[in-house]
């Protein structure tokens, strides 16, 4: 009795949740990349639902029919070893399902490596993304501007994000526009995204990287071409210049609000380069508990330690929100 109830409630609860799920960001793609992934997900959902229905149905039927009741206490089940035909059937069908899922998975995997279909003609905007603890740095080498914790892109134009990290490993994710990819120090990974329309989309880090991880978000603002050009122009004219010293300051483990500069840090360091220097300082990461030995690289000794800064970091550990 109870068992039937459980099965029933499960069976009804899931579609209900699904209905409410139509609002979920993964199912509301705002660009071709996210859309192709959603199509793949929907295709898999259909098959998986089929599996669930079949197995749940069979399960409910068997358990209900063959449960022990006062009437059948005398029933002694037959001896049964198996059935080759059935075994073949339930090996073959899953194999077919796996094949049905594999084909679109592989094609999508290959498609996602390239400019989305239909946008090959347009010259992509290249944006270098540098993730640091706990902020996102966006450099536009063509335009010569740099933004922190927000990124503006033109609508309907492929954007090539070149990802790297100033230290720990992060994962760059804008769910409304597409899937995610890791950013790692001394390495460059690439990700194409396109936004169909103007709009503001949440982006964030999904790969845990310490105390400030929860707030490591950024905004993607998709604009019309005119708006975008105007914005670039305005930044170039009004935003301050970033100095190397200031940049090193930015890389310390802190939360920053939005910042904008009219040049890029790529002029003096690209963290994706294999022989780029690690510029973070372990001292900045000291926190509570017993402290162990730090092994400094000789060449990095020049970094002076600024005690006031360490204290600042400790204050915002549980931290306030980055500004947006």
């Amino acid at each position, binding site marked *: 009795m109870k068992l039937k109830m*459980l099965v029933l409630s499960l069976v009804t*609860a899931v579609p209900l949740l699904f209905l409410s799920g139509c609002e*979920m*960001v993964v*199912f509301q793609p705002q660009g071709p990349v996210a859309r192709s*992934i959603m199509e*793949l*997900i929907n295709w*898999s*959902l259909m098959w*998986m639902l089929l599996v669930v229905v079949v197995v*749940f149905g*069979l399960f409910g039927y068997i358990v209900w029919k*063959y*449960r*022990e009741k006062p009437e059948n*206490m005398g*029933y002694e*089940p*037959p*001896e*049964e*070893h*198996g*059935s080759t035909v*059935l075994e073949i059937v339930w*090996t073959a069908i899953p*194999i077919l399902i*796996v094949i049905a*899922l594999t084909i679109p*998975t*592989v094609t999508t995997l290959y498609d*996602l490596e390239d400019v989305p279909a239909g946008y090959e003609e347009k010259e992509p905007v290249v944006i270098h993304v540098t993730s640091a603890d706990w902020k996102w740095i966006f450099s536009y080498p063509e335009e010569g501007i740099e933004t922190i914790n927000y990124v503006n892109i033109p609508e309907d134009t492929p954007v090539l994000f070149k990802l790297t990290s100033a230290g*720990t490993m992060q*994962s760059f994710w804008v769910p409304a526009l597409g*899937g*995610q*990819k*890791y950013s*790692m120090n001394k390495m460059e990974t690439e990700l194409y995204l396109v936004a169909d329309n103007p709009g503001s989309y949440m982006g964030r880090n*999904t*790969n*845990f*990287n310490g*105390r400030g991880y*929860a707030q490591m978000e950024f905004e993607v603002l998709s604009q019309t071409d005119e708006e975008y050009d105007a914005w670039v122009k305005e930044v170039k004219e009004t935003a301050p210049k970033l100095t190397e010293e200031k940049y090193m300051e930015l890389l310390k483990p802190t939360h920053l609000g939005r910042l904008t500069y009219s040049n890029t840090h790529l002029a003096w360091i690209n963290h994706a380069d294999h022989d780029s220097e*690690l510029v973070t300082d*372990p001292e900045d*990461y*000291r926190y*509570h*508990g*017993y*402290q*162990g*030995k*730090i092994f400094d*690289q000789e060449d990095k000794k020049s970094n002076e330690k600024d005690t006031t800064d360490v204290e600042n970091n400790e204050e915002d*550990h*549980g931290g306030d929100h980055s500004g947006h």
Partner: protein
Amino acid sequence: MEVTIVGIKWDEILITGDPIILGSQIAILLTSLGIIGGLTYLKKWKWLWREWITTVDHKRIGIMYIVAAVLMFFRGGMDGLMMKAQTARPEMSILDSQHYNEVFTAHGVIMILFMAMPFLIGLMNVVIPLQIGARDVAFPQLNALSFWLFFSGAMLFNIAFVVGGAPDAGWTSYFPLAGKEFSPGIGNNYYAISLQIAGLGTLMTGINFIVTILKMRTKGMTLMRMPMFTWTTLITSVIIVAAFPIFTVALALMTFDRLYGTHFFTVAAGGSDMLWANLFWLWGHPEVYIVILPAFGMFSEIISTFSRKQLYGYKSMVVSIVAIAVLSMLVWVHHFYTMGSGALVNSFFSITTMMIAVPTGVKMFNWLFTMRKGRIKMTTAMLWSLAFVPNFVIGGVTGVMLAMGAADYQYHNTLFLVAHFHYVLIPGVVFAVFAGLYYWWPKMFGFMLNEKLGKWHFWLFVIGFNVTFMPMFFLGLNGAVRRAYTYSAESGFAPLFMLSAVGSVILAAGFAVFCYNIYWSIRYADRNISSDPWDARTLEWATSSPVQHYNFAKLPEVKSLDAFWYMKKNNEGITLKDEEIEEIHMPSNSGLPFLMCVAFGIVGFFLIFEWHLLAAVSTVLIIAGLIYRSFDYNDGYHIHKDEIRKTESTWKKMEGKVNNHVS
């Protein structure tokens, strides 16, 4: 203020300044004092030492594993509840981010390595020698050492949050975050050292069970007549031997990086963080099959017993566990499709991963068809096994969805993933150990757990589990990520997080009923029960409950699968004739494994605090233990016929007048 004497910063050793931790410190102190006081008052020290600490009896070692695992479940569960409380509402501040990080790290490590694995290894210890008709495992003293090394590692890991600082880089401990460059505190040393110690114990368990199962099966038990739990234990042990050395190396390199400044996984000087991710998951994915396969075996036994039918498709069950074991070594990259290894690599690993669904599906259908045409008795143990089927299917289908590399770009590191692996681990492992505990409890202790409380435990836990984790699928698809200690009110996540938190309270209530059930049953349960209360099918039920320390007066002879069932049916091999009684040779107890536990604990502790000189000096303790062992020629002792005669006639006499509690 800094207090540094002989290079040790005394004032930093204990974590101070946090009320939750202060409370825990006091609670730990009081509990320890209580235990010590209680043992002294009841004069139980000698008993504890003789009967438990020095035991080499596989059944007692199994019970100690299970007790430790239940305690660890409690600790890990409390961590889970703390996380659920913290995220119940947006912008809560029960835990700050640092504590949340420490808590989910502890939760993950404890649940997998100190709860799931020991629980299963405990049940394996209790059951396997009995199932194959043996008197102990192949290397009883090594078995005790395995347990004590696990215990040493577990205790070291558990003190981290009050002494020195807890690891906070997640149970995966990804570099470079977990390295000295970004985590200079000693917290993550705890991870490297204590898991190393516990892992050595696990490796020895693997070797021990392979030899036991290959060499000590009773007469007539061919490989294809082994019970399914024995089969899964064998294959699990093989995976342990194949996978744990990888973890041993990974942890050793982590130790070198953190303690001695090498550059395996660092950012600087040519290290590679991706190397850690690969090594970790080369062990980590097989590890999840190490915990799932024995659980599959237990479900097989229980479903067959309570359907009163032989396991359907026995051969294909064996083939599928072997297939799963092989595939489990070929899928590790699915944990980081997003690393950018290219479409070809991701395609390959998508396919291998999805292929695991095929043998798993075969097993599912075999379980269903075992029940078909059966007579399904709804005992608590069976209810857990039944609930496993639909819940695990949800875990399985979401697993296939995650396996599809391109789709994973949207699920990776979100709560969708967290929901998925809890849907695999909780129905797959936790339901299994509960089922196994209710099922084998009478074998271990000679009385049953209360079935009525058992059903409360079951319903609360299963409902609570679904309410907790079902919402997380949807949160994940809506952009909520894992390991985030809070979220903003604008995100719109609040209602589902709240629902999930409510679920975890129901879940906890279920666990509380379970604890109460143990208490109630110890006090009040009927001791006068049959040695075969479930009318079961395998050899562990052919002897007394609780099992006499030599297991079988005469080793049973096996003629078919489900040996005991046919022994009962054909009424052969059950009675014991007087002239069949022979002296039995048994291994002696030994205090050495426990002393090694202490020695490893001390060395480990010093290494964690980077007190290298102290560590080096105390390594002498370990060496002394090894030398002692090498010169130890204690050959065990013999049990005399009279004693066997007496023991056997006592329990057989009891059998005639037992109360039946099940039908």
